[in-house]
């Protein structure tokens, strides 16, 4: 990148991403392929680690199933029934082998296929995450841009103060307050999603309070990043140059400054997406949403290894894919951000 060319969100211009070695220039597809290979290795490593950690937990599914009637002979019998009497490495190898055939096995305690569990639990989590993100991105970007354009003025200071205050409230505490106020006191929204089942869209009103609880903190963190990026961009040489060329204020802001300002926020957005897709257990618990977080909690309680493994696989793949997407998006928005300019 030389001269006074104005960087903007245009495909075609390429620079070496930061992650590539030295000055060697890498194309986006090659970069993505390498990241995918690395991601695959990470996913396998995560499942091995999760398996080992679950094994390291005290007790196993047989002990949990025996509950308050821990007759040792019965526990041994359950262990045999569940195949838990076989050595752990053999069980992990079986699991990996099954995975190659697309078979995630069956729940130790319920006997149902793990894929069914995952599909059921992913429904509410994905629905909630999707709606949260749909609202989060425009709201956070708008708040960040507005604050940057009014830098140092009352509106900026107000947004900053409100953001810091809101950010310091954990989502679970916020959820409890929201329920007490808007559901129990005012009766505007249902307090929980009890009885709605795995399709939350069947009763959209149950989404409102969980959405508010989930949106609060990410809006603050992402709008702060957008604001900072925007302040930098608006003060930069290329924006001043664009203004000198006579481009309209709005065009400079939205087409030239904004993409550069949003790039750093993309990483934070990826982290938020990952967090949402993991099923935010505190929010799920308060609102009784049968999502992935709740599933993981009951699977760990039951020491139901195949289900835990399936969930770990989903979480690991989500993390790898979301972060890869974020890098690619950041790269496209602002090639310079990772480039050699």
């Amino acid at each position, binding site marked *: 990148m030389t001269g006074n060319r104005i960087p903007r969100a245009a495909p075609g211009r390429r620079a070496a991403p930061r992650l590539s070695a030295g000055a060697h220039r890498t194309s986006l597809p090659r970069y993505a392929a390498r990241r995918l290979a690395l991601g695959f290795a990470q996913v396998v490593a995560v499942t091995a680690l999760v398996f080992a950690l679950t094994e390291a*937990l*005290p*007790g196993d599914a047989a*002990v*949990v*199933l*025996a*509950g*308050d*009637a*821990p*007759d*040792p*002979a*019965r*526990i041994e*019998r*359950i262990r045999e*029934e569940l195949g838990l009497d076989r050595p752990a490495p053999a069980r992990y190898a079986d699991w990996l082998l099954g995975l190659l055939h697309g078979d995630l096995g069956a*729940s130790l*305690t*319920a*006997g*149902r296929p793990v894929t069914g*569990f995952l599909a*059921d*639990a992913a429904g509410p989590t994905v629905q909630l995450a999707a709606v949260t993100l749909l609202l989060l991105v425009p709201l956070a970007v708008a708040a960040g841009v507005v604050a940057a354009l009014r830098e140092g003025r009352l509106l900026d200071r107000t947004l900053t103060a409100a953001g810091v205050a809101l950010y310091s409230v954990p989502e*679970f505490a916020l959820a*409890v*307050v929201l*329920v*007490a*106020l808007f*559901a*129990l*006191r005012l*009766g505007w929204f*249902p*307090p*929980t999603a*009890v*009885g709605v*089942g*795995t399709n939350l869209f069947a009763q959209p009103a149950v989404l409102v309070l969980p959405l508010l609880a989930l949106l609060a903190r990410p809006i603050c963190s992402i709008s702060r990043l957008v604001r900072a990026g925007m302040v930098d961009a608006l003060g930069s040489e290329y924006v001043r140059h664009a203004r000198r060329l006579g481009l309209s204020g709005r065009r400079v802001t939205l087409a030239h400054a904004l993409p550069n300002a949003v790039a750093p926020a993309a990483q934070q957005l990826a982290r938020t997406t990952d967090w949402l897709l993991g099923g935010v257990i505190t929010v799920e*618990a*308060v*609102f*009784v949403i*049968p999502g992935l977080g*709740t*599933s993981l*909690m*009951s*699977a760990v*309680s*039951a*020491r*139901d290894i195949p*289900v835990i493994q399936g969930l770990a696989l989903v979480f690991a793949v989500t993390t790898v894919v979301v972060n890869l997407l974020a890098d690619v998006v950041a790269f496209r928005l602002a090639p310079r951000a990772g480039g050699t300019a």
Partner: protein
Amino acid sequence: MHSLNRRGFLGTAAGLSAALLAGCGTGPAPGTAATGGPRKGGRLRAAFAGGGAQETLDPHLSNLFVEASRSKALFDKLADYGPDLSVLPRLAESWEPSADLTRWRVTLREATFHDGRPVRADDVLYSYARIADPARAFRAKTTLAVIDLAASRAVGERAVEFALRRPFAEFPNILAAFGVFVVPEGVEDFTRPVGSGPFCFGSFEPGCSLLLRRNADYWEGAPHLDELQYLIANEEPARVNALLGGQADYAHDITATTARTYRGNDRLAVTRLTNSGMQAFAMKLDRPPFDDRNLREAVFLLADREQLVETVLAGAGQVGNDLFGRGYQYYAEEIPQRAHDLEKAKWLVDKAGARGLKVRLDTSAAAGGFVESASVFADQMRQAGFDVEVAVGDKDTYWKDVLDRGSLCCFRSGAMPIESHFAQRLLTPSTTNITKWRRPEFDALYAKAVSLADERARRDVYAEMQRMQHAEGGYLVWGFADWLVATRPGVGGVVDAPANTLDWARFDKVWLA
């Protein structure tokens, strides 16, 4: 049977909701259950803690409270427990032992499964054989061990002659035991269960909801409700919120704090399930320090039971007398209540040379109130001179962990007949003998009692066994907890019955006004 206890995590939530709700009650009228007679129709939504997607509808696998309640809605046992744990006939119309108590003829009442087939002797024999299958591990398997199923037989369609391995006067206890439900012959798949219970299967989403429909042909008369829906909400505040928000009509297992908070509120009525759970500490008798009878005596005397009931149960319960089953059939009411005597306890501790002795008290969140009771009791023990360390273990594996390890732990039990408590926990071969009480003379008394056909004679032997336990046993039974359920105003027919008994979490007699 155990409840998943996830109460602690959102403990603060209830208080906050309550604070914000204060003043919502519109008048002084306390929330009370519906008045007036039963009304037909409607759907009752009952919220319970659940087991997530791991839940099953196989009645022989029932473990959680919600599973036990569902099983009794869909299926029947031959008999069940009344409020004092005496046995009431259900699918069995009557039973008759042989003179030597080794053969029992059970006559079935006329009843049908939901698909219209009659309940036959062969269904009973199949169900019992399934539970007792040596290759499997159903919870009630050891309970059925006394039955020689190979020698038992059907007598026509509607009578079963059970052959026992030894004389057993308490055989009806087995017919009523936890999880011993009758399923149709040959059934292994319970994804769409067919039973003989008051409700028929509708639809099931494990970990979320089970919808049942009224069985108009139920042998005891059709339920008042058209539909019954079980909903899962693991956290107690969430169950209460669902009730207050109109999303549920019945919330199982609410805390005494919640009950107190909403006293006088017209949005919620509380029914007390008196005497639902025994609360205890278990000392192991086969190892130091509690192999010393003086030290056990000291621990019994230093316990301030009133304080435990007041703080741990928030007053919702009664003081215990170191014996299981207060208020149950055969309970030795005549044994005097142990009183708090700290001075004597101190003297006994000194006499045993145990002042400053390090003792570990095992506890976990496996049951509500355990951790609190351990912390209160540790203080009481310190006052008598013990150096107590409270060890909080893993809640999921607690029962296995404390069965053989440690010397002192928190313990609790749901309702069961006193004979079952002896058989499961206090005989030399008992598989869950947590106090390691192994006395040949006690075993002999048990064998004698269960071979006596005369109830009064049996009562005398049971009383003798309870005296031994009271004097030298390892259970410090400090209280009996009342459990609480909350209902919306307008729900009628919810009765005070100890958990695990027939009328507990039973919905065919419940109605919506």
